[in-house]
């Protein structure tokens, strides 16, 4: 059985259960296992929950308990009976595609902050091009085209760098022009 986790926005996996034991995961870490329809919390996978309980986590609160509970098993069942899964809504964007049956990676950065900065401070039309590429990142991602999203993200990055470099070059040029 293989396991995947999303730790710090990065997909980690496939891991065996022994490797999961060594990972730094909490009960709230988004997790996925072969055969599951969607991402769940780590505590929703029984064998991972057992590992977490052994590490002294409280499955209800998600925090480490002061002392390990002597009888951890009933607590997990109690949680399971509640039957709700807030992760499903929160991490719906990472949901695996039905066709590929592989968990999807987080959206690549759109660099909107840098696009705006380069537009306002560098006085070149290149920043506006970067904003357009920023916009295309998340629309490509939400349509499931990961490769295109990555391409648009790196293009936005390229135009931001070009705008900043051109803006920096323009400073001495401008000074020389006004001196003439």
């Amino acid at each position, binding site marked *: 059985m293989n396991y995947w986790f999303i730790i710090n926005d990065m997909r980690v996996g496939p891991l065996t259960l022994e490797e999961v034991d060594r990972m730094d995961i909490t009960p709230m870490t988004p997790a996925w296992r072969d055969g599951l329809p969607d991402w769940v919390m780590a505590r929703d996978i029984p064998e991972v929950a057992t590992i977490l309980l052994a590490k002294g986590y409280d499955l209800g609160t998600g925090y480490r308990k002061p002392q390990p509970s002597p009888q951890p098993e009933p607590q997990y069942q109690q949680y399971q009976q509640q039957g709700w899964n807030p992760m499903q809504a929160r991490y719906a964007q990472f949901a695996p595609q039905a066709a590929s049956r592989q968990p999807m990676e987080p959206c690549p950065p759109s660099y909107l*902050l840098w696009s705006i900065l380069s537009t*306002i401070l560098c*006085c070149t039309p290149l920043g506006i091009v970067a*904003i357009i590429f*920023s916009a295309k990142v998340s629309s490509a991602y939400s349509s499931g085209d990961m490769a295109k999203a990555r391409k648009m993200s790196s293009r936005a990055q390229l135009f931001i760098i070009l705008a900043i470099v051109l803006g920096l070059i*323009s400073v001495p040029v*401008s000074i020389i022009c006004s001196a003439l």
Partner: protein
Amino acid sequence: MIRPATRTLLLIAIILAVTAGLVVYGTFDPATYPFPQCVFRRLTGYECPGCGSQRALHALLKGDISRAVGYNLLLAAALPFMALLAYATVAKQRHPRLYASLTGSTACYLTFAIVVGWTIIRNIFSI
């Protein structure tokens, strides 16, 4: 990937450069001192979306918000938004929804429309 040591150095360099820039713009008024002029404006005669940013920055650092708005309305309006965006980027683990909505397509296209609209309007009414 950038190595952690290089990353720290880069971060220190950026912080130093920004601090130096703020000191320069806080001390000297670009309206009276010969600061580098926008190349776009020099070449085309039109004002770019960023024109007036240097004077607006000086006014902001002096605490004169109304003068900053007069020099460049877009910069004054964009600063709070960019601060929120920076916060959302740093704390995207804690607020994944906020981060997703602020960097999503809608936000980007809206930004594009505002920048282009502002450029057209400021050149027509010369503000």
